């Protein structure tokens, strides 16, 4: 582990304000003692996990997949992103 980071700064540099030094907003990421860690390698496949049998059809190109969300927030986020990629590409 590396030494904990010093701090982050958020820019508030505004020439027009006549304040030429940054009014830095220091976040909380100041030095603390890092917690102890134990080297470990994750399981490639998580043990003791099982799945209930699926009755879905084999995967083919012509299916309709996905589920239309009923959550209005997510629905709007999906629609906005779809519109964005259709027009902006990314």
């Amino acid at each position, binding site marked *: 582990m590396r030494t*904990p980071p010093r701090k982050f700064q958020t820019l508030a540099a505004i020439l027009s304000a006549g304040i030429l030094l940054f009014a830095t907003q220091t976040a909380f990421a100041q030095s603390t003692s890092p917690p102890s860690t134990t080297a470990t390698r994750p399981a490639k496949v998580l043990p*003791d996990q*099982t799945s209930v049998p699926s009755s879905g059809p084999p995967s083919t190109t012509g299916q309709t997949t996905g589920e239309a969300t009923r959550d209005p927030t997510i629905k709007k986020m999906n*629609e906005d992103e779809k519109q964005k990629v259709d027009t902006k590409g990314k």
Partner: protein
Amino acid sequence: MNIRTNPNRLRGFEKHVKVENLSRRSILKGLGIAGSFVLAAPVMTRQAFAYETGAGKMPHGVVVDPRVFVAIAPDGVVTILAHRAEMGTGVRTSLPLIVAEEMEADWSRVHVQQAHGDEVKFGNQDTDGSRSTRHYLIPMRQIGASARSMLEAAAAKKWGVPVTEVKAQNHEVVHTSSGRKIGFGDLAADAAKESVPSVEGLKLKDPKDFRYLGKGQVSIVDLHDITTGKAHYGADTRLPGLKYAVIARPPVTGGKVKSFDDSAAMKVPGVEKVMEVKGWPWPSKFQPLGGVAVIARNTGAAIKGRDALKIVWDDGANAKYDSVTYRASLEEAARKPGLIVRKEGDVDAALKSADKVIVGEYYLPHLAHVSMEPPVAVADVKGDKAEIWAPVQSPGGTREDVAKTLGIPEDNVTVNVTLLGGGFGRKSKCDFALEAALLSKELGAPVKVQWTREDDVHHDFLHTVSVERIEAGLDKSGKVIAWRHRSVAPTIASTFAAGANHEAPFELGMGLIDNPFEIANLQCENPEAAAFTRIGWFRSVSNIPRAFAVQSMVGEIAHATGRDQKDMLLELIGSPRIVNLSSVKDPWNYGEPYDSYPIDTARLRKVVELVAEKGEWGRTVPKGHGLGIAVHRSFVSYIATIVEVAVDDKGKLTVPRVDTAIDCGTYVNPERIASQIEGAAIMGLSLAKYGEISFKDGKVQQSNFDDFPVIRIDESPAITNVYIVPPGADTPPSGVGEPGVPPFAPALSNAIFAATGKRIRALPIGKQLET
């Protein structure tokens, strides 16, 4: 990476990065190319601003206010804000360097500071699409020029002289007649009171006076910290009282937790809590997949706790996703007519009348990003405020999504951007930051969510899987008279819309409908293809399979007609012209206006001829070696690559040499261009040799670098030479980060064919060459 045993030939900028002192006309006329390499600064005149880019049409557009981006301290230190994310391209240096150049700041006295996510304040921050320099060369120059103008105005007032008599020069303003000088720091307070000049009235520097732009002599600002281990990446963030979490996510896209038993997990020392986390039905943009989170005093304990969980999953509708059967389905779809997305002439009739028809089907599997740093994020949610620390490519988008997901105002969310240990498009999706935010809100404490490599491979937004089928009809003379290209691949749009089965315009515009070949009968089709997992942007996106197919087919036609690959390629590109895409309903052009960024076959030809010249195309190679060539336009840049391969009698493949020529228009830092091309060669070779993510029972079968390898240093191309076409005065900047990848695989494949007579039509190469 260029590694040679002769120390005199070790990689050096001047040895392997060549800015060619050539005129386009000299290429077009087929004249000889200058024998020596001349480093030349790119020409950027006021005329260069006659073009437009798509920057203004991006979400939140462009901000050119110097008060937002530049600050000057009384001691003279100039701080310039980097509003794009650094993931290895050097953009955190390049954009501020443009400002420093134009404002006459001394780079050694410039401090670069990372912006947080705030697109209203900074303009669009999506660091993707190879767009940063393309969209911000002009705005950054304008910001620098504005700051310089304000400093000059302040000095003139101070001295009581006309502003025309003063000039900013290397961190000072000079009164030219008297020789008086005053430093930027001493002027800062007065300069801050000056009004910001209008963009239209700005006087920009003459390119002949550039000190930094186009020189390639400025190291990236993070170089020292990166090489000494001091750089701050996502995983380095720590907060007082930080909780550490890992999440067991549904192994099948769209699955969910049916039940779980955490009794064993809670006995793991250090584990503090186990909880189910919210997921959303798929597709749900970049929302978390849900699952079971283990919260602990450190990440190691959390991982051990997760290993001890007993979970029963409901895999949902995608549990039958199987890459073997799906590939067969893709191939079947590619053999039938699909949605016509470009039509020139009558391809059916031309194929019917052809003397010979050559058919090629090319398969490219799913690919995982596997950036060296897996996803990680820290969130601290307190009441209706949230602060995030994460390696995200889209800090503005992350801010917006965190706010919406938590149901709090966007102004209450701060997104701090760390360095990214690679991105390749994966980190433009902020699901990992949303996971941290949701857990922090639930726990009332700051939380770090760390993804393991296994998590990364299993739950990526993968590069799509595709079959590209091309039918080329030849007349008796061997001339190609018909070209039908069917592209079948699940679309990225499926990540936002249930039932999206056709590729989006931006995907079709990546090497399909923008085919530059001069063929009378040309048709592009897009049969439908359902998605069964999350599909996302991957470095170069759809250009990878398209370039692989199109450029491999050029090699196949060349072989069938007994032609040289390069000659065949130039014949297909045809005459120097602007490609007419009027038959295309939605001719997506990387978001750029076609007037500024047309498909210019003269530039395409130029990079082919340049790389052929400098790469010594046609040179005699030892037995078992072969040369392959490919060219591709992507992200509105033109790039051609020659690969030399060596295949031994057991089928072991090595790459002794790569030569690449790129025309990316006006540029800032040629050293960064070379780095991106070198990296693209390594990545391209990795993907071609080993890259495959496959599914069985809806689950990703690979887990880590042992079964999704990336090439090591001993497999990397021994030499990568890069040749940069100098821009014309009116040539707008274009992409660099991604375009190097697409031509690599087909150049490699063509080289393998030249060496062995074996045609690679499916990637990865894997064991196909073994004897």
